[in-house]
């Protein structure tokens, strides 16, 4: 503890924290509130209480198909991204990697460069060399977008692992596959789990790459919500958006369990 915080500073801090909480959470709160409205239109404050919009989207083939596409896409992307990202993070953690800095930069750069660039680039390549965008192209785009998260979380966990563990396994005669199975992967497990949750969440929520690569039959939930927002949204959009918030909350709880939310944040 460092001295005492003056009363003025404490008061300003509390005021800022409260203002931030309202400002940051208000948009999510109004979405949730709107989703249980009984009225036909999006009005605020919502009139009455009903779950009819949830019933409606759960009976709607459009919403269900979009949800199915989103879940499939996120699952496929998560598996590929975690496999590639974990291997890369383990590789980068080894001593004597040539061009280590450049490789690190390459793996993290999709996070830094405008995503819109990736979206059009993939669209242009797919139109030229494939039959235009498809589920596979969209998955490729999402793998690129999610890979940095996996590499970062796994690297962060591996950085705390004693490198002599692996050497010890070697000295004790473990073949390469046992070394990975019994030593390397268990050590990296919290990072792998956190990376997987991140990848799933990012892919499930992603809208920018998806907007450029939308193809018939590959309409994800965020895309469906986006097109409804462009015209006249009704409370069914709020219900779908609330489901997406619920998914995010679930992922956050999972992240807190495997790694601790404060570690994930920093």
């Amino acid at each position, binding site marked *: *503890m*460092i*001295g*005492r915080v003056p009363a003025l500073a404490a008061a300003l801090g509390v005021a800022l924290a409260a203002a931030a909480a309202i400002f940051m959470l208000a948009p999510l709160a109004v979405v949730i509130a709107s989703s249980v409205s009984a009225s036909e239109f999006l009005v605020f404050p919502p009139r009455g209480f009903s779950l009819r919009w949830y019933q409606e989207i759960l009976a709607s083939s459009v919403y269900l198909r979009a949800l199915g596409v989103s879940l499939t896409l996120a699952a496929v992307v998560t598996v590929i991204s975690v496999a590639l990202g974990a291997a890369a993070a383990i590789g980068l953690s080894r001593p004597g990697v040539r061009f280590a800095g450049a490789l690190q930069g390459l793996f993290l750069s999709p996070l830094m460069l405008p995503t819109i660039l990736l979206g059009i680039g993939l669209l242009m390549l797919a139109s030229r060399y494939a039959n235009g965008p498809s589920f596979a192209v969209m998955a490729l785009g999402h793998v690129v977008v999610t890979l940095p998260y996996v590499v970062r979380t796994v690297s962060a966990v591996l950085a705390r692992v004693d490198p002599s563990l692996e050497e010890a396994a070697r000295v004790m005669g473990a073949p390469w596959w046992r070394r990975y199975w019994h030593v390397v992967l268990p050590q990296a497990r919290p990072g792998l789990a956190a990376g997987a949750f991140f990848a799933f969440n990012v892919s499930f929520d992603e809208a920018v790459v998806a907007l450029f690569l939308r193809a018939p039959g590959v309409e994800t939930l965020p895309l469906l919500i986006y097109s409804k927002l462009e015209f006249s949204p009704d409370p069914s959009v709020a219900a779908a958006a609330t489901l997406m918030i619920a998914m995010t909350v679930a992922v956050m709880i999972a992240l807190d369990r495997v790694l601790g939310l404060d570690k994930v944040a920093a």
Partner: protein
Amino acid sequence: MAQLRIDGLTKRFGAVTALDAVDLDIPDGAFVAMLGPSGCGKTTLLRCLAGLERPTSGTIRLGEADITTLPPERRGLGMMFQSYALFPHMRIRENLRFPLKMRGRGDAAAQDAKIDEALRAIRMEGMGDRYPREISGGQQQRVALARAIIADPPLLLLDEPLSNLDAQLRKQMQIELIELHRRIGLTTILVTHDQEEALSLADLVVLMNAGRIEQIGAPRDIYRKPATAFAAAFLGGANLLDVVVENGLARAGDGTALGPLAAPDGPRRLVLRQEALALRDAPRPGEATLAARIVAVAFNGATSRVVVEAAGQRLELTVPAAAIEGRAAGATAQLCFILADAPLV
């Protein structure tokens, strides 16, 4: 100037009592070492003095003023941290200027003069424009010390100041600290877990254990006459031999008569310093003796450390290496010491 007076100082962290009603008077100009194992409360005491912790109860007086609840910036003290806490974003000069500026000492020119003087004193003229990361660990230590005293504080607090230096540099800095204290006579409180450092630097050692003061005294007194078993064991790793006093005669645990001892009847413990023990074939006149079996011998160069078993206890002694030649583990010998020189606890 400033006499420091601590009364009933208590600090609790939740259920843990770090300081338990500590009373301590420190005379002006003293060099005091707070000594004890980690977690004994010595660092908490120092932080309470600095104002970095607020005591749960008790008072701290500096001269006439009660400073118990004064924020750290208004106490005007000098403090040196274990990690040095040099500001990485400031050059050495600006680090040294910081306390002068914060306390509003003189104009920029006067401050510059003071900084130059300080740099000269630590033999770092011309290095003022470097950043802390651009100088060696020893130099960082000297800058940190210079920064702690540049604003002429009435009291200097040193938190394990030498623990980040290698053994050789540490010895050299100990001498420098002694010289500095002699030269400016600043009341200094040093926190350390290193008993050798405490004994060689301070003129008053405060031995702490479990939030309480175990013993206060001059280094020689505290070493020769430990008041408690803890004091005996912590300072110099003395052996504690269980004895029973009966009608003025001391007997070891196995019944061996050791000699007359002026103490009330009952079980007692003898403090036997490692260097006060000798292994011989037969005792010299006036020596008490115990039959001992050698368990292990570790050669240390000039001396050897020997572990023996005597009177059912394991004892450790340090002897000149030559004195143990010819004796190996398993051999028997007489463990000899002068009973009158061994304090009782």
